[in-house]
């Protein structure tokens, strides 16, 4: 390990992480600031949290956003998983280039373009804009992320397991649910979580595709920030950060435990075999 840790590597990682985390930490600290001025420390207080609990519009927006993220992430996970299977399993088929283009392009496409084009579609279809149009938009965007995540899991998948089941007369649908899905589940869960957070986070596409009555939390936060910084935003940000951090930690610990158990089982099987 001659090229292992050196002071340079350690410092660059430490500085990099300090850069990534400092703004978040500062935000969390200042959410407990008693002063109305965001940058002046006026003592510890939870007043912005209680102000938040009384802000009905903000709570409504949060509730809509959570429901939206849940519904769109679930649909996106189903579609994205199907798309990933298509990409990995079906080799060359007619229109594959177009298909993979449609999977990868939304990952990098600027939000303003995606948002505008979806809005014009909904207008030309004469759909009432609101919760469901935003859901459709978010499914379209996030299913591509799910597809990429699940795909990375599928490429390392041992297909002989599936083929064995099929050879033994297991019907394709059952094979999928009994063999394939459990094995790619970590990827599917990771995909769902990614879709959920992307939907929770999206401002631009939601702004284009929403209608009256469906203001999402990012839209609410954005309009408040535009009017001037309010300490309440720090409080709601802290709550969001906490929810996501806990979710990600639980999921990764869960995933890690499964992985360890799987490795243990494999080792045992190898010893016995």
């Amino acid at each position, binding site marked *: 390990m001659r090229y292992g840790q050196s002071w340079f590597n350690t410092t660059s990682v430490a500085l990099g992480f300090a850069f990534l985390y400092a*703004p978040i930490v500062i935000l969390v600290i200042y959410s407990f600031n008693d002063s109305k001025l965001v940058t002046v420390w006026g003592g510890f207080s939870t007043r912005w949290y209680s102000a938040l609990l009384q802000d009905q519009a903000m709570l409504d927006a949060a509730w809509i956003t959570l429901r939206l993220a849940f519904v769109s992430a679930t649909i996106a996970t189903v579609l994205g998983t199907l798309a990933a299977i298509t990409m990995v399993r079906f080799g060359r088929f007619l229109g594959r280039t177009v298909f993979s283009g449609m999977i990868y392009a939304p990952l990098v496409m600027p939000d303003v373009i995606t948002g505008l084009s979806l809005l014009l579609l909904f207008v030309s279809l004469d759909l009432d804009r609101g919760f469901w149009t935003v859901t459709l938009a978010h499914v379209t965007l996030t299913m591509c992320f799910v597809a990429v995540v699940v795909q990375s899991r599928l490429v390392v998948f041992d297909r002989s397991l599936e083929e064995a089941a099929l050879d033994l007369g297991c019907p394709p649908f059952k094979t999928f649910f009994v063999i394939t899905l459990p094995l790619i589940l970590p990827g599917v869960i990771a995909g769902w979580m990614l879709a959920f957070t992307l939907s929770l986070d999206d401002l*631009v596409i939601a702004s284009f595709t929403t209608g009256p009555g469906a203001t999402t939390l990012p839209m609410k936060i954005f309009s408040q920030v535009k009017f001037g910084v309010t300490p309440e935003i720090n409080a709601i940000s802290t709550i969001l950060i906490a929810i996501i951090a806990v979710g990600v930690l639980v999921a990764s610990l869960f995933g890690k435990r499964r992985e360890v158990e799987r490795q243990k089982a494999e080792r045992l099987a190898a010893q016995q075999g």
Partner: protein
Amino acid sequence: MAVTETIAPKEKRGWLKWLLVAIPFAWLLVFFLIPFFNVFKMSFSTRARAMPPYKPVLDFADGIAGLWAQLQLFTPANYWTLISQSKYWQSYLSSVQIALISTVLILIVAYPIAYGMARAPRQWRSILVMLVILPFWTSFLIRVYAWIGILGNEGLLNGFLLWTGLIDQPLTILTTNWAVYIGIVYSYLPFMVLPLYATLEKMDETLLEAAADLGCPPTQAFWKITFPLSLPGVVAGCFLVFIPITGEFVIPELLGGSGTMMIGKQLWYEFFNNRNWPLASAVAVVLLLILVVPIVLFQNHQQAAEAGK
């Protein structure tokens, strides 16, 4: 490989296969590809005081004659506006410029981080990767917003610099392009760190040992071995950040001032403030044309990476 035995069940799955292909394909066709043609169509339309605020729409209701009459109203006027009014083409230029500079900055910042991570003790690596992903899973908007409090005139950075005595007048950072660069580098950093880490982590370290044994100094070994081998990660990272930054709206809107011209911001204003949907569409079409080459290259790169797995 038990090839012969598996052919029969595979063929039985034929109908299922095509159904599976059809569902996501149809979805993306309807909600991703077709909408772009709609934008293209709209960009030749004219603005109207109505709801929705445009005319004409290619509507088949009035038959062929009606359709023909509508087609006559199609005009490239919106594109003339983009060419003749300097604020539009300047916005395109400055978007591409900001995206290029940011991409280089992000690469410079991300490389040492990814390198350090890839050389960290093995048991640490997955935790470090988690720590890179974690902020990227907390709200993008909130993370950009956090910088307002740091970069403002009475912000923490100025407070700190005044306290240390390095400056005696607060620096104006917020509402300048500097703030936009800081915000972009900060927000897009994980998109560069992760692909770089992925290639650096897979690198065969014995190559470096061989180089060292043959008397190659570490810096030279880096440029001759490590960097060329990490190029796939560099390319992937650059695409992942360059394309979305070009159309970025949130960061220039929150951190930049009126002097910060970016085309995503311009499109947003045309759409929401001026309610000029046809012009906003034309802005989107030209932005898409600018990004077609990088997007196609990105897609080919992804397909190559996927095939290489």
